[in-house]
């Protein structure tokens, strides 16, 4: 046996998955509540105790972890123009697995600086200006930050011409600063990978300790990345394959959680219909969006606010009287696992509403324009209509036997032809919760990781 122990420190649950790398099999799964407020290792030991003893006591080939505990990786990004460098910075942070709690554009005002101090992000990303373009605003923002009470690491990824001066302004003020290539070197050219890599480096080197996860890191070899990055990495591996094992091609993953719903898409998303012109900032090949208002526990009430009782009931089999009170209770007891059929049904309805809204926000849209030469179609974002695989992950896909139907309800609808959601993909459920583990294994054991993913993603209908 050659075992890999893979841990995900979630915001609510600590999950452990044991994979036999030789047999390419999942041999055990256990979970317990995350105990980051007291001692992160308590939850780990409780989960470990649930593993069969022969597995618990075996030697491990590797022990790796991802984490979204203690609020996840909270980031603020600053750019110049909202639709350009500020958006590029936001995408870099999202792709690095962060929760983007605020995006600032133009010059930071004194009031914004104060607000920023209050937000106390884990990492700040400072962008602005194309290479050789505007230097004034990023320099002024660096001066604002130098006078602020911000102590978190600052990743500078703006106009290269200003970068050195920005670094020296911030360093002189005692700020921890790191430099990455410009997230938008030219207008409408996106370059998020260097900034993503730098954010991940800062996460590993500094954030883990700051979040009280150091003890856990002493137990595993390394906490490699934030959980969403692990899922995105898995999606990429599954889509693109390895040198010796073919990938699936373009795909979308919907991750429905207690606090947020994430959507990951891998693919260029170029227009599929003739006569459609693409506009706006180019899309990253691996794109992640996070809906901070859509989650089936912490944010159960905001789903109600967004979708209304009608929509929730449309997606449920039971009537669910006192809906508002029930959702209030759910948002208070975030560790709640449904047992009765009725509770499961409510989870299903909430997850459906969350997934629909998240998919709609992630997918590209078409805008029609009329001009002297007739009608034109402009595409913003990715065209996902041709995507062949759609995967659901998150607790509901483990616990609810019919959860695959949630995915079906997120697809393209002829009634909304300008929302470019997948039209007819094969649907899969991550019923063994293996995607994070696949992402963690992707660099060291890519072939095995890919085959484990293919084996355990359960096809729906």
């Amino acid at each position, binding site marked *: 046996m050659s075992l890999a122990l893979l841990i995900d420190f979630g915001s609510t649950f600590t999950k452990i998955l044991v994979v036999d790398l030789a047999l390419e099999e999942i041999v055990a799964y256990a979970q317990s509540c995350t105990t980051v407020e007291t001692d992160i290792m308590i939850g780990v030991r409780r989960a470990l105790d649930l593993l069969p003893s022969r597995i618990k006591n075996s030697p491990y080939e590797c022990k790796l972890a991802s984490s979204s505990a203690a609020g996840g990786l909270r980031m603020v990004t600053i750019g110049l123009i909202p639709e*350009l460098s500020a958006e590029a910075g936001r995408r870099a942070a999202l792709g690095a697995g962060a929760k983007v709690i605020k995006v600032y554009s133009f010059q930071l005002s004194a009031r914004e600086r104060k607000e920023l101090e209050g937000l106390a992000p884990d990492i700040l990303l400072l962008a602005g200006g194309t290479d*050789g373009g505007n230097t004034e605003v990023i320099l002024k923002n660096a001066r604002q930050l130098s006078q602020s009470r911000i102590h978190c690491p600052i990743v500078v990824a703006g106009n290269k011409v200003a970068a050195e001066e920005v670094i020296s302004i911030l360093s002189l003020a005692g700020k921890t600063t790191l430099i990455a290539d410009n997230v938008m070197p030219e*207008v*409408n050219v996106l370059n998020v990978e260097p900034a993503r890599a730098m954010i991940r480096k800062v996460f590993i080197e500094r954030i883990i300790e700051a979040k009280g996860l150091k003890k856990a890191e002493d137990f595993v070899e390394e906490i490699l990345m934030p959980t969403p990055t692990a899922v995105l990495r898995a999606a990429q591996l599954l889509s693109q394959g390895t040198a010796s094992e073919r990938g699936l091609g373009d795909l979308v993953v919907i991750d429905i959680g207690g606090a947020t719903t994430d959507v990951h898409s891998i693919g260029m998303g170029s227009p599929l219909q003739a006569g459609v012109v693409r506009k706006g900032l180019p899309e990253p090949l691996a794109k992640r969006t996070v809906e901070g208002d859509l989650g089936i526990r912490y944010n159960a009430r905001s789903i109600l606010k967004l979708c209304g009782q009608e929509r929730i009931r449309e997606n449920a089999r039971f009537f669910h009287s006192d809906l508002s009170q029930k959702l209030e209770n759910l948002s208070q007891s975030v560790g709640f696992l449904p047992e009765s059929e009725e509770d499961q049904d409510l989870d299903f309805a909430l997850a459906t509403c969350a997934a629909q809204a998240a998919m709609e926000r992630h997918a590209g849209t078409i805008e029609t324009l009329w*001009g002297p*030469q007739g009608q034109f179609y402009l595409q913003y974002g990715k065209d996902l209509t041709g995507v062949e695989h759609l995967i659901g992950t998150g607790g509901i896909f483990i616990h609810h036997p019919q959860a695959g139907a949630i995915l079906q309800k997120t697809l393209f609808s002829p009634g909304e032809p300008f929302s470019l959601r997948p039209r007819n993909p094969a649907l899969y459920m991550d019923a063994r919760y293996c995607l994070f583990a696949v992402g963690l294994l992707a660099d060291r054991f890519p072939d095995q990781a890919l085959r484990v993913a293919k084996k355990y993603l359960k096809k729906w209908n």
Partner: protein
Amino acid sequence: MSGKERKKTVVLGVLGVDAHVVGNKIMAHALESEGFKVANIGIFSSQEDFIRAAIETAADALLVASLCGHGELECRGFREKCIEAGLENIHMVVGGNLVVGKQDWREVEARFLKMGFNRVYPPGIPPKRVIEDLKKDLNCSSESGARSSE
């Protein structure tokens, strides 16, 4: 900027609901080969798209093309928006098929100058002339202007 003068930067695009992409590509190529840094925002660009790109790149000029005949409608209020956005001194050039029908060019030119454009070109102008004017207007340092000042 380490003592060196930076490349002159221009934002180039086709304004409004206008799909004429060929001239846009030719113009971008011509400008680049003359040493300009070109932020080409392409076809179907709004006034706001020009302004956003100009701020982000600290552009010296906007080169606005309009070929569909609706130029007068599409260009209205452009200078005012630039002023709002802090680009009050940006050099603005417009050309293409700005109007339809047989109109006296001097009148057309006067209308666009009044709107706040610094240079207005009739149809059929070679890129070379636009570039020569641009070098003069932006005070490029020598004959091959934008390039030699790098």
